[in-house]
């Protein structure tokens, strides 16, 4: 067998790890080709990284990763940070004071809106840019890390940020797996997205697009 000598050692282990950047079927094909050609693990590593880079570049020719990372994740993480702080602040004040129906309604509705909007945004990011999720993760982490380091005294604790990060991650996971929502859920989230800027009293048409995207791509029942 031609390839037997080259398929062991540190270089080959690095190469196998690098093939994790490729889709599973392509990973098998590439590893097989490299084992058969036996040109050395380091040259093979260059081949794998080159292929992975070309695959990434090809993905970025589409609108999807741009929309997911710059059109949604980056502004949404800034926006949701503010919402999370406001919602958690409202809930905290509610716990410290005698219950008032109006305050209770406002706090719970804001909390619900943060969680559902974060889940919806995460779902859209996961469904729209499965291959470039790393860019969306960067688009979310960078503003969070910046705000946490710059304004720790403004009540921006990691715990408060979790209010949107956890449902967002859950949404990403479901979006990557399912790609589409059922029509009922999609309409629900589109309504939530429409309500969000109204309830917060702020303009923000971009807040609507994830909900409308879900409604437009929703899974209809088979005829």
């Amino acid at each position, binding site marked *: *067998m*031609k*390839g037997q000598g080259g*398929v062991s050692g540190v270089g080959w282990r690095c190469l196998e790890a690098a093939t994790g950047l490729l889709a599973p*079927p*392509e990973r*098998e*094909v*590439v*590893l*097989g*080709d*490299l*084992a*058969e*050609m036996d040109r050395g693990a380091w040259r093979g590593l*260059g*081949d*794998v990284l*080159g*292929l*992975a*880079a*070309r*695959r990434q570049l*090809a993905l970025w020719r589409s609108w999807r990763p741009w929309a997911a990372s710059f059109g949604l994740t980056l502004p949404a993480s800034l926006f949701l940070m503010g919402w999370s702080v406001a919602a958690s602040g409202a809930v905290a004040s509610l716990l410290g004071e005698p219950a008032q129906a109006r305050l209770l309604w406002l706090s719970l509705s804001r909390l619900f809106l943060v969680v559902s909007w974060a889940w919806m945004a995460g779902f859209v990011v996961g469904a729209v840019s499965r291959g470039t999720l790393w860019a969306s993760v960067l688009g979310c982490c960078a503003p969070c890390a910046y705000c946490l380091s710059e304004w720790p005294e403004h009540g921006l604790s990691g715990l408060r940020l979790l209010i949107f990060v956890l449902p967002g991650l859950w949404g990403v996971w479901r979006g990557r797996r399912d790609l589409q929502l059922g029509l009922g859920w999609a309409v629900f989230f589109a309504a939530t997205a429409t309500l969000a800027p109204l309830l917060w009293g702020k303009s923000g048409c971009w807040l609507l697009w994830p909900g409308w995207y879900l409604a437009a791509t929703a899974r209809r029942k088979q005829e």
Partner: protein
Amino acid sequence: MVGEFEYLILSAAAHLAEEAYGAAMREVIETTGGRTCSLGALYTTLDRLEAKGLVETWMSAPTQLRGGRAKRMVRVTGEGTRAAREFYQAVIRISRGTAWGESRHNRVPADTA
């Protein structure tokens, strides 16, 4: 019309016929074509050719030679054959009368015209 590298891939796949797959095509392009061929260039170009309908690809059964891994087999379609022929004829036509073309002895030298 196909590009130069696409033409090399179509030609390599046609040469190898039933045995056309990534590693074998790379070997043919490098040894016969005389140019380096990275796996990245090979597979992304194959994807493009497949999207244009010029080749068909499928996964073979795993083989022992490759550590129990499958091959991505390639077959040139009728459309691919036409596209490769068109490229080849264009190269032949444009090369006629050049210093490296087949009919260079028929050219009238500029200083004797």
